[in-house]
């Protein structure tokens, strides 16, 4: 157990001074009586109470009379709290809680940094109004993992001239830093002006944007080297980069400093990255303890805007300027003097070498913002082009000129025609006046521009006169004449028209009509605009050439035919010699235009054009009908230019589509016909003719039968025909009041066989069997075979056993035969023809079984 001891310094600093300033001592009785918060020994407490109480009247502390009175007044109550374990514990808990809060607050404030500067600790104590003591803050810092720690001294950080722009240029060059650029391209912080000059020479041949940017960077580096500030600029860059990491916490700053360790050594900065990181951290913006004075901000602002005179004035206005800053001011003054001398030198050059003077002024402008320098640059006008010329080409005036001798700055040109600006700025030596006025003498002026500053004088072209052509020329070939029209360009007073080199009489200002033409012949016309020139003479444009011909009369189509095939309209005709045939569709009963030649618009007025569905050759059309209903009228119209010849109309009925799938089935001496009916058709005609195709539905040599769809669908169509080759045709039939009309005839062929009938009978019981064959129409009988088979009927002339082979001969034929006893009963007989043209049919099939 430690013995209590009185500490005068602590009592003075931690107790008397705060209480004197108004801190209530009851807030921390352990502090007042110089006791540790975890004290439990009664003797120690009693000794502390007695020891402190005795100090209240000590003359040493007469300067703290008010504090001593306040302490004495609360001594009794303090004794009660400190000597009562329960109250003392409660008091201790409250103090511990506050202590824990302070520790946490400081931990956050440290943000990973190793400590707080002394000034910051003092400010913290001061601002606590006695609540905190330096001892308590130090203890809390230790608990938070830090300490009271002052940062290392770093060189003054002054932003180099045009630093921001330089960073932008470096970014354009894909370099993160000036250090990186110098280390990569040149010789790092030891780079010399010679090395920079060599590099600038290399870049001079290139006009690329990167080369321009790098040249600018090299210029800045040159300036810093000349002023001995290159290392300072690189130091600034290091600190600037570390400062940018402050917002992300101390750890990032420390990591950045560690990464820049090598640079720090080469730049003469503390080699320990932790020292640098802590110094940057303590100097961070908003950290009240390390804020730079306001005049430094003003200085920085002036430097960044190249207002060097204002920067010197700011430094001059500061009393007790630190040595480092005084050196900086001296350098600035020296730099200003050199620039002023350069201005004087350039001024002298203006009379002898303007370009050199401008170049000097522009160099000064890069270091110094001065209105006199700007005025001097404007005063040094560029030289105008030596010569200029204009020429008329394709209705435009092309102006060209020789380049100016000026070379410094951005050299461009401006072209004007009187007060009209033809081209405001161009870098090439040619411009085009796209819409010059016609018929007047034109003079163009060309000024040189240096960074937009025009030359004092201009190069002028000789006079050029624009003779524009007529506009909107249209020729129209009518049946008996060719006419034309156009509009005159500005300045033109008229036009001339010639055909094949000879003038066309009666041409007006903007129109002409040529009646001396023949149909079908193509003529070429030349139209020239006429101008009245300034000297009173007439001028003519080169002229526009165009051809036209007189309207040809179209020829009507008179052989148009059409039919429906599988729901599609198929039409054909003989194509006319010229023009396009359009097919119009009309519903039955529509008014049709009379067959005649008429304006195309009138001919096409009422009908619905039939659009080709699939591409067809000349004189052919396949399309879908657009008219509802069964019957449509088609009208061929030959369109040629603006005329149309109406052809012969042709009525076609969808019911007249050809039948499909015509099928023929022979049943003995009859033929059964079936087919698929076209939509809407209800009656069909079946025609048939022996040995030849029917020529049509009304072929006089053919037989026919009209069949309704109901009959076809319910009973079928069966036609008895004798033997021979036949052609059968089917077409649809439409009956109206006037006459029958027929659809296309679909044909199929077939051969009909002759029939001979036979019987098998027995002459007498146990006698021979007799085969009797008789032709139906008395014709010659074919060779035959009589077959027998046990159990089942022979299926053909080669099945079973042949009982008799019979030669061909006249009808009737009788043949006796015997059925071999070895054949198992019942025996089935069958007579077969050996000629495909004749079929043998048994009259009594029941007789063909021999039991």
């Amino acid at each position, binding site marked *: 157990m430690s013995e209590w001891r009185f500490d005068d310094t602590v009592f003075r600093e931690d107790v008397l001074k705060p209480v004197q300033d108004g801190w209530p001592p009851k807030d921390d009785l352990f502090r007042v009586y110089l006791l540790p918060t975890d004290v439990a020994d009664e003797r120690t407490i009693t000794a502390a109470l007695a020891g402190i109480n005795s100090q209240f009247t000590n003359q040493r502390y007469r300067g703290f009379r008010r504090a001593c009175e306040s302490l004495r007044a609360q001594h009794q109550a303090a004794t009660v709290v400190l000597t009562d374990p329960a109250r003392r514990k409660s008091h201790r808990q409250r103090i511990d809680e506050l202590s824990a809060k302070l520790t946490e607050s400081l931990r956050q404030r440290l943000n990973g940094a190793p400590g707080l500067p002394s000034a910051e600790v003092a400010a913290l104590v001061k601002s606590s109004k006695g609540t905190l003591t330096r001892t308590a803050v130090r203890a809390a810092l230790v608990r938070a993992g830090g300490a009271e720690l002052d940062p290392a001294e770093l060189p003054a950080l002054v932003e180099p001239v045009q630093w921001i722009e330089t960073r932008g240029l470096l970014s354009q060059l894909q370099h993160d830093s000036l250090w990186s650029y110098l280390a990569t391209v040149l010789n790092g912080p030891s780079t010399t002006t010679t090395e920079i000059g060599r590099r600038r020479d290399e870049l001079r041949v290139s006009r690329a944007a990167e080369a321009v940017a790098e040249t600018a960077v090299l210029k800045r580096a040159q300036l810093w080297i000349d002023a001995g500030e290159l290392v300072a600029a690189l130091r600034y860059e290091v600190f600037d980069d570390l400062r940018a990491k402050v917002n992300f916490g101390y750890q990032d700053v420390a990591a950045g400093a560690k990464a820049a360790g090598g640079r720090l050594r080469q730049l003469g900065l503390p080699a320990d990255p932790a020292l640098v990181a802590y110094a940057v951290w303590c100097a961070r913006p908003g950290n009240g303890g390390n804020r730079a004075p306001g005049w430094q901000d003003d200085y920085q602002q002036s430097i960044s805007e190249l207002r060097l005179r204002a920067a010197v004035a700011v430094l001059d206005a500061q009393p007790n300027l630190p040595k480092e800053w005084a050196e900086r001011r001296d350098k600035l003054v020296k730099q200003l003097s050199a620039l002023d001398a350069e201005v004087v030198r350039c001024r002298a050059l203006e009379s002898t070498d303007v370009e050199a003077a401008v170049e000097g002024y522009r160099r000064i402008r890069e270091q110094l913002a001065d209105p006199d320098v700007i005025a001097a640059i404007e005063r040094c006008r560029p030289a105008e082009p030596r010569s200029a010329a204009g020429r008329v080409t394709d209705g435009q005036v092309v102006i060209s000129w020789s380049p100016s001798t000026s070379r410094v700055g951005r050299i461009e040109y401006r072209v004007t025609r009187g007060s009209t600006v033809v081209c405001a700025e161009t870098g090439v030596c040619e411009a085009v006046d796209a819409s010059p006025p016609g018929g007047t003498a034109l003079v163009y002026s060309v000024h040189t521009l240096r960074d937009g500053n025009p030359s004092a004088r201009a190069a002028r072209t000789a006079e050029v006169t624009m003779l524009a052509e007529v506009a909107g020329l249209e020729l129209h070939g009518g049946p008996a004449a060719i006419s034309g029209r156009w509009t005159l360009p500005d300045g033109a007073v008229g036009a001339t028209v010639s055909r094949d080199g000879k003038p066309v009489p009666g041409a007006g200002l903007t129109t002409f009509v040529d009646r001396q033409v023949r149909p079908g012949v193509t003529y070429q016309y030349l139209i020239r605009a006429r101008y009245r020139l300034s000297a009173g003479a007439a001028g003519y444009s080169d002229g526009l050439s165009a051809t036209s011909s007189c309207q040809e009369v179209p020829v009507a189509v008179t052989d148009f035919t059409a039919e429906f095939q599988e729901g599609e309209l198929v039409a054909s005709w003989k194509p006319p010699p010229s023009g396009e045939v359009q097919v119009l569709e009309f519903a039955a009963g529509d008014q049709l235009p009379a067959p005649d030649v008429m304006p195309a618009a009138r001919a096409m007025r009422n009908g619905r054009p039939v659009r080709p569905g699939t591409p067809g050759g000349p004189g052919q059309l396949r399309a879908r009908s657009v008219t509802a209903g069964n019957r449509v009228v088609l009208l061929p119209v030959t369109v040629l230019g603006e005329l149309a010849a109406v052809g012969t109309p042709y009525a076609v009925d969808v019911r007249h589509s050809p039948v*499909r*799938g015509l*099928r023929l*089935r*022979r*049943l*003995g001496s*009859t033929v*059964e016909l*079936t*087919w*698929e009916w076209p939509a809407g058709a209800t009656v069909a005609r079946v025609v048939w003719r022996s040995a030849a195709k029917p020529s049509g539905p009304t072929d006089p040599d053919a037989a026919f039968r009209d069949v309704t769809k109901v009959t*076809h*669908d*319910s*009973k*079928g169509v*069966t036609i008895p025909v004798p033997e021979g080759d036949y052609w059968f045709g089917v077409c649809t039939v439409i009956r109206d009041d006037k006459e029958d009309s027929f659809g296309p005839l679909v044909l199929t062929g077939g051969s009909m*066989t002759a029939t001979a009938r036979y019987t098998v009978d027995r002459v007498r019981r146990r006698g021979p069997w007799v085969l009797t064959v008789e032709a139906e129409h008395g014709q010659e009988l074919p060779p035959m075979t009589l077959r027998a088979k046990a*159990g*089942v*009927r*022979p*299926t*053909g002339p080669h*099945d079973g056993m042949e009982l008799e082979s019979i030669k061909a001969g006249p009808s009737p034929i009788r043949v006796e035969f015997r059925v071999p006893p070895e054949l198992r009963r019942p025996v*089935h007989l069958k007579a*077969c*023809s050996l000629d*495909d043209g004749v*079929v*043998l*049919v*048994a009259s*009594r*099939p*029941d007789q*063909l*079984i021999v039991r």
Partner: protein
Amino acid sequence: MATTTCPYCWTVHRRADLMMRCGERCDHRGELFPERSLKEGRCPHGKQPQLRRACPNCGNELLREYVECGGRNIAVIGSSDSGKSTWVGVLVREFQRGQVHERFDGMTLNLLGERSRERYKKDFEIPLFEDSRPVLPTASAVRTTPEPLLFSMRFTRPGRFGSNRIEPVVTVFYDTAGEDVARAATLDQLIDYLESAEGIILLLDPMQMRGVRQLVGGSGAKTKFTEQLDVVTRLGEVLSERAKGRVGKLLKKPLAIALTKLDLLLPTFGPESPLRQPSRHIGVYDQSDGRDVHEEVRAWLDERYDPAFDRTVRSFFEVYQYFGLSALGAPPVSGTQLSPDGVHPYRLEDPMLWLLSRFGVIRTRGGR
């Protein structure tokens, strides 16, 4: 005593056992009572009864014409895709307004009852003749009891003294699902139906016969086929189970075996074949023509399909005949589209005419 077979549940009832209902004026309106309870044409309560009879077993109403004319039940069976529904649908049309109607002067066919008319319209007429598409497959008897299609046919027959008389016959068609005949188990479920039928029409699908399909070129869409010989074997076995008399006794129920889709097979028949000649059933059933076709088809089956087929049929059935027909006249262009030139059947009616002649409804001519 007259009996009636209910076309809905195939139970046989004496006429007097059929149920009747009390009429509108009776206090017991709608009450069922057996026909034998009629007293002087009146219900047991002395009022006028409703005219229609009802089956005592299933309660379905029996039309008077069916009861009084003695309806003839005809069963149509065949493997899946053999065209049973198509055949029924086109047959009715042919008898109503087609070639058959033309060949049998004075013959009329009317569908009986609203149910038959609606069913025919919905299931047959609209698909085949309006939409030109195949009919939908018939529901299996496992799920749905075959729905009868009742129609009345009237034939004009000359009287003894030169006058004509109208002879009505009511026919009931049952269309079965093809899948039902493909398995013995499901065919068993049709036993009542087959047993009650007075005639059976078995449609043979040539496209399900090996060799034939390759011969005419199948579409390749179907990969599973029903052996046609198995169908007739199962049919014979099922009917024999219920047959009376000694084992092995031939069945007397007439069986019409029709080779369908003849339009595809015509090239396999010679030009002299009766199947390539016009039908000779004009006004009468021509037995000579029928016999000719029978032998022709029998020979064709022997040569193209299976010689055992006819022997199998003959081992079960005493009365049977072969036919060849085409219900559509041309194969459909796709599974949903019939031939665009319409429905043109060929010899479609032959099996029906044969059965009608067997029933004595139409006259026969020639042959034996």
